[in-house]
């Protein structure tokens, strides 16, 4: 059976049904057993009528990155689609409206800009939508109908996906959408001479298990609920807002409390307060909010209070570009803040591991009584995958506090120096477990103490936690690890890791002896594993989505060798094609 590996982009203006058309396509393809990865981009303004693009990669095999260029561009809006043509492959397919409501002025039609070699199919989207439902709203569905007809996709399961999408709407809405789809399907079958090679004919994949079609933000919220989160405080900010939105609905149902604060400083303050009170607490923000929280993060570490911050990175600095993805908060998350401030930082590499990372973050924060930052980015927050339903965390992940025993209460030392740095923590209100807590340096009882020896011992204790934390995190992912030597090793983190892994697999097919390394744990970092990997590699490449190579700088200090860097700040997710190209040049 031949492989399917295709990227479809739907481009329109906000309000034209671009995103829902993308969503329906993803759902349908997932129901047919395909792997999907989709990613929407939309205007940066909070309210706007700008360009929206729904990007979906569909594959009959496992995929790790969204694909850089599109095989198909569906243009629901000519003006926006003209600029989107630059991401259509040289031999890509353009589906456009051949009978718009008003004639185009010269150069205002996307069809006029299709490059030689691209295949354009003009479909009367607007006319057919009117025919189906009396208005232009169904243009997106007409286009999906055309797509299904062109690619020999079975129409009835596709219409089922449309019905499911609009199941909660009135019957007339469902009918209009289905009819628009069928108009597009039938018209295309009758009128279009197909000259492209794409076809889903005779492709039947095994009936898929029940899958979740979900993005990183939704998974973070789901994981938090599954991991017994009981308090959330936050201030909305793109791209993290969705987490709060979901939790505002769901957390109270789980007996938890959600507090919208006046700003991010209050939010982290409240989270630390709840953590101090023994509750599992977290907040979610993005770069600018994280910057505001910085002072308080030191308190979590110093006073040894569990706190979890999800930081979904966007292009910065300052308010930057809210709806563009970047990995430029590595330094602020791993190294920022005041003093010697050991904090745990996790960076999931894909949607699925957003769940794992959130569960782990709440567990580690509670067990190690410290700050845990989870670094997502705009892409991970918003990109949609179809994944198996994650297994709920086992009980050990749900109750991780190491509590003092009765004997401890005879002379309770909340900050007792221990080998692994963890001092049994009494939750306020526990009889006999009273203690001082402060952001000032302190002694084992929590009383302010600025002595040379005291500060040294306490700093060592806080850092000692790092020794065991590493054993609790998933080991770094290393491909082809059974080999002894590689010409190129690609080291990556966060959302770039999927693209790096895919690039390495393609490189291996081209005969390049390469391997990839990525670690969810950024702080503490698995330095030994990194050094061992580096020792096997003749050359090292570090791709990341920031200008200054923040992680590359960090890794270079560990490896004490020079590395090749590949940096992008385009606002788009990392593309495996770019990494592969760089590998070929190395």
């Amino acid at each position, binding site marked *: 059976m031949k492989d399917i590996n295709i990227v479809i982009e739907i481009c329109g203006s906000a309000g034209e049904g671009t995103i829902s058309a993308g969503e329906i396509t993803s759902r349908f393809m997932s129901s047919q057993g395909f792997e999907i990865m989709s990613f929407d981009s939309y205007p940066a303004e909070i309210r706007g009528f700008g360009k929206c693009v729904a990007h979906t990669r569909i594959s009959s095999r496992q995929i790790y990155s969204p694909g850089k260029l599109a095989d198909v561009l569906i243009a629901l809006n000519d003006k926006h689609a003209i600029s989107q043509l630059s991401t259509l492959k040289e031999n890509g397919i353009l589906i456009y409206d051949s009978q718009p409501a008003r004639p185009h002025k010269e150069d205002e*039609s996307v069809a*006029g800009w*299709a490059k*030689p*070699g691209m*295949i354009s199919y003009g479909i009367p989207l607007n006319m057919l939508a009117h025919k189906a439902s009396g208005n232009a709203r169904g243009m997106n569905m007409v286009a999906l109908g055309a797509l299904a007809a062109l690619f020999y996709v079975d129409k009835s399961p596709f219409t089922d996906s449309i019905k499911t999408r609009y199941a909660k709407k009135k019957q007339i809405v469902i009918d209009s959408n289905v009819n628009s789809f069928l108009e597009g399907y039938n018209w295309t079958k009758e009128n279009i001479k197909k000259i492209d090679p794409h076809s889903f004919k005779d492709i039947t994949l095994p009936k898929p298990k029940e899958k979740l079609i979900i993005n990183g933000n939704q998974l973070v919220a789901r994981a938090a609920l599954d991991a017994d989160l009981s308090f959330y405080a936050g201030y909305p900010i793109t791209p993290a807002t969705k987490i709060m939105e979901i939790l505002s609905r769901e957390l109270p149902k789980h007996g938890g409390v959600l507090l919208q604060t006046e700003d991010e400083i209050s939010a982290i303050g409240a989270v630390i307060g709840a953590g101090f009170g023994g509750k599992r607490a977290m907040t979610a923000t993005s770069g600018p909010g994280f910057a505001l929280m910085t002072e308080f993060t030191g308190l979590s570490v110093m006073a040894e209070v569990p706190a979890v911050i999800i930081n979904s990175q966007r292009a910065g600095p300052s308010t930057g570009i809210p709806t563009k993805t970047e990995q430029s908060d590595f330094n602020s998350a791993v190294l920022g803040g005041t003093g010697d401030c050991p904090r745990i930082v996790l960076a999931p590499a894909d949607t699925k591991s957003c769940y794992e990372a959130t569960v782990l973050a709440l567990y580690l924060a509670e067990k190690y009584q410290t700050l845990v930052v989870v670094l997502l980015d705009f892409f991970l927050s918003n990109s949609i995958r179809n994944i198996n339903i994650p297994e709920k965390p086992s009980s050990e992940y749900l109750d991780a506090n190491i509590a003092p025993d009765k004997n401890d209460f005879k002379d309770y030392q909340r900050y007792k120096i221990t080998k692994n740095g963890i001092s049994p923590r009494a939750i306020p209100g526990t009889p006999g477990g009273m203690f001082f807590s402060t952001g000032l340096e302190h002694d084992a009882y929590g009383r302010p103490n600025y002595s040379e020896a005291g500060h040294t011992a306490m700093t060592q204790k806080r850092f000692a936690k790092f020794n065991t934390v590493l054993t609790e995190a998933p080991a770094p992912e290393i491909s082809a690890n059974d080999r002894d030597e590689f010409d190129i090793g690609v080291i990556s983190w966060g959302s770039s890791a999927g693209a790096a892994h895919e690039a390495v697999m393609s490189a291996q097919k081209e005969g390049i002896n390469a391997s990839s390394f990525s670690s969810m744990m950024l702080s503490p970092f698995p330095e030994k594993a990194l050094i061992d990997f580096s020792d096997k590699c003749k050359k090292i490449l570090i791709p990341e989505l920031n200008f200054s190579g923040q992680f590359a700088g960090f890794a270079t200090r560990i490896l004490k060798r020079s590395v090749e860097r590949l940096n992008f700040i385009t606002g788009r997710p990392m593309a495996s094609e770019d990494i592969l190209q760089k590998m070929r040049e190395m």
Partner: protein
Amino acid sequence: MPENDHYVIIGNGPAGNHAAATLRQKDKDAKITIISDECVPYYYKPRLTDFIAGEIAKEDLMVNFQDVKDIRIRCGQAVKRIDPDSKLLFLQHMEKIEFSKLIIASGSRARVLPTMSGYADHLKFVTSYTDVMEYKEEIRKAENFFIFGGDLVGFKFFKMLNSMDKTVTIMIDPDAFWPYRLTRDMLEQISENLLKFNTEIIVKDEVLSIDRQNGSYRVKTRKGIEKNVDMVLSFNGLNPNIEFAKGSGIDIDYGILVDEYLKTNVDGIYACGSCAQIYNQAIKSYTTSIGWPNAVVQGEVAALNLLGDHKIIESVGQKYFDLEGVKIKTTWWEDINEDNDA
């Protein structure tokens, strides 16, 4: 009006491309646009048969024509209508384009005769890349073919099928060679020479009906021959593509009528290549020209004249085309296999 002249050429074949290259050579500043209703860069039509047979790759089909510089090529965009008065072209997708001067080089497509109307739906025509992409796989999979007509393209296609070990029945019609008619002697000689291909040849007969039955086609002829085949292809000559010019005020017959300078009756509008019907002073009548070399020369001449020159068009060389052993004098057809004829 645009600041600089905007020369628009309808057609991305040899006539259109050589017109565009000549215009660019002579006028560095003008805006030049080529429009083609096909979604493919400039390609060799004569190599389509080799492409179908899998003998050449898509890259080898493309003409590597470096002289087309700084020219906007609008592919996959059909011209629907011309308004010479307002100097506007109306495209199928409802975009309007202003031009200052226009060259029509829209070529030709398969001729469908009125007698075919009863079964035209079942016929396949192969005159363009788009046709080929639509039928390539079907042709590769099919075993039995019925070809009828038998113009130059038809014979090329027949030989291709033969090289692919397909079973072909060919029905030769002397009119297929349109606009030239084969003589009775020629016809007989051709069919005799075709015998070496171990194929069934039908002459002096005509198709009566074609019906679709269980995925194949049943062809019946007037003389009672019945054939069950997988595909029926028609090669009955070519008709100029001129629908968009109808009603525009540009004089047309079956092609676009032009004088010896390739100028139409409308100032600033020229036509060349196989869409044009060119006035021939010697015979005091119009002739169509088919074939790659003529299209090339005509494109160049149309461009020069559009820029103010006064060149009379002449046919390219006197050639004898070998149609299955029969020498047919043409001035308009050449074997196109090498890159040098771009």
